[in-house]
């Protein structure tokens, strides 16, 4: 027997009470772990961000297009190693609900700027040789059950063709994969020229460019150079790193994180009060035992540690079980939704935050009981029978 034995026995002296407390702590940490892991998964949707990749968009907003001519002008700059234009298509298949996130792109330059994506060479050659070819991501292929060689009518909810319809017949010529799990492949690319030529309005517009500088140290200079090129024109540009672009895009999710923090915060405030008052009650029930321990010669600091350890143990048992369950849940659900939202897993940062919260909860709920126990006056406590 040692102090840890005593701590454990005291904690579980009333089994039902201990188990109820553990369950409430478990639930709080399950909620915390799962919500924040999903939140991280959603805001981490941009996947592998290249350090030397820049994004140029219209200074007004990334929903306002830029002229086609910008492509050549930016490409001509010295600091630009590779550049690729992109435009929104807003695609869906058969039902508007069945969205296929689609971009009009120049496949040849696209896969140079995004080297983390791979396409089989024969499929790629085929896709480049035919104008009505689409290159779709692995996730799209999985979700829709599509294969190379299929012909698909792809509708747009943004654009109209000059023949009055909004449907583009495309051949699935290639499927691209990502080198890393958290790089999304849940979108499709169709040929810019083929798409552009048939538009009834808004021809020759580009939503944004992605480009490589070849050296992260040159990012700022190149961005400044690009934006200077179009300064005082009707379509000024804003060029930023892909990471910064992702962040500004994710600022929209900022409110969700705040709401999550409030919800989880409320859950923690509740268990803090429940566990806190229960632990105070628990120590008051055994003041006399504490006095006996002191009489036997247990020093006050040791008693302080033992009582504090009880709350920390409680918090760790409930918290670790909760974190474990959250990790299991996130892993299972993450695998199931990988095609829609890749890279959902339990991030180390969330697990570490969880651990810190466990220790914090244990310390806060254990402090009052520990001080109470440490201060017990033997004579007063033993006098009460």
């Amino acid at each position, binding site marked *: *027997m040692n*102090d840890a034995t005593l701590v454990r026995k005291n904690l579980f002296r009333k089994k039902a009470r201990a188990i109820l407390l553990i369950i409430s702590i478990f639930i709080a940490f399950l909620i915390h772990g799962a919500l924040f892991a999903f939140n991280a998964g959603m805001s981490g949707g941009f996947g592998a961000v290249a350090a030397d990749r820049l994004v140029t968009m219209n200074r007004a907003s990334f929903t306002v297009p830029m002229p086609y001519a910008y492509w050549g002008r930016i490409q001509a700059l010295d600091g630009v190693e590779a550049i690729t234009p992109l435009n929104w298509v807003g695609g869906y298949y058969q039902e508007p609900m069945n969205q296929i996130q689609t971009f009009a792109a120049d496949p040849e330059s696209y896969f140079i700027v995004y080297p983390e994506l791979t396409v089989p060479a024969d499929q790629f050659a085929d896709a480049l040789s035919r104008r009505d070819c689409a290159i779709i991501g692995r996730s799209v292929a999985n979700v829709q059950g599509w294969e190379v060689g299929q012909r698909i009518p792809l509708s747009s909810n943004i654009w109209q063709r000059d023949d009055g319809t909004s449907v583009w017949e495309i051949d699935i010529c290639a499927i691209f994969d990502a080198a890393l799990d958290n790089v999304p492949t849940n979108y499709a690319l169709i040929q810019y020229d083929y798409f552009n030529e048939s538009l009834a309005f808004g021809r020759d517009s580009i939503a944004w460019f992605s480009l490589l500088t070849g050296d992260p140290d040159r990012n700022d200079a190149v961005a400044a150079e690009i934006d200077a090129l179009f300064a005082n024109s009707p379509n000024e540009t804003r060029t930023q790193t892909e990471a910064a672009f992702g962040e500004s895009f994710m600022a929209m999710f900022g409110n969700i994180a705040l709401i999550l923090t409030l919800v989880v915060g409320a859950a923690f405030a509740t268990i803090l009060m429940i566990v806190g008052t229960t632990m105070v009650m628990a120590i008051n029930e055994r003041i006399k035992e504490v006095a006996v321990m002191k*009489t*036997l*010669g*247990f020093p*006050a600091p040791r008693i302080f540690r033992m009582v504090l350890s009880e709350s920390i143990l409680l918090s760790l048992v409930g918290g670790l079980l909760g974190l474990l369950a959250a990790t299991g849940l996130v892993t299972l659900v993450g695998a199931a939704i990988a095609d829609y939202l890749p890279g959902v897993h339990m991030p180390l940062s969330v697990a570490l935050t969880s651990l810190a919260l466990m220790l914090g909860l244990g310390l806060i709920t254990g402090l009052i009981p520990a001080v109470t126990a440490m201060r017990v006056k033997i004579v007063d406590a033993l006098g009460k029978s």
Partner: protein
Amino acid sequence: MTANALYELSNLSKRYTRGREEITIFSDLDMAIPHGDFIAIMGPSGSGKTTLLNLLGGIDAPSSGEVRFEGARIDNLSQAKLSKWRAANAGFIFQFYNLMPTLTAAQNVELPLLLTKLSGKERRKRIATALEIVGIADRAGHRPRQLSGGQQQRVAIARAIVADPKVLLADEPTGDLDRASADETLKTLQLLNSEMGKTIVMVTHDPAAAKYAKRELHLDKGRFVEKEALA
């Protein structure tokens, strides 16, 4: 004063203030307790018996005066030092046993050994011996709830002697027991005194219990009255 007394009390006073009123429990008490003594302290309720025992056990401090144990003062020690002193020198026996309900008899007896540096093997030996001495080895795995009052008090005595203290301080150790259990308990204390040389100070209301001691002291109105020992 006895030359090599275990305890020497001099000018010992204990007062409480209740509001504006000051109550003196006893004042200028002088007493020596030699090694190997077995004293029964008797006296009316409220006369200060428990208070005196607490001063001897270093769990209460006098208002004035000195408590010396083996020549060294313990009345002015810090809480931390008193904890150490108690763990090393004093064994406590209470009227209501005060065992830990979550621990078995053997674990209750082991408690004071957590304050020592003894090996696991040595601990087990000590626990077994202590339980043997009080005659309750067969109940080592039982929890207090599963034991009678008399059996619980034996476990408590085993706990008090397991760390081999010099003095046993017992506050009405038979106050909650029937006659037969009380006699068993008192015989055990007598044995610990005569065979193992433990000095014992026992507070009791029961004249029959007091007969087991070597001498009886009556505390009344802050004064000691000694009766001739019968043992």
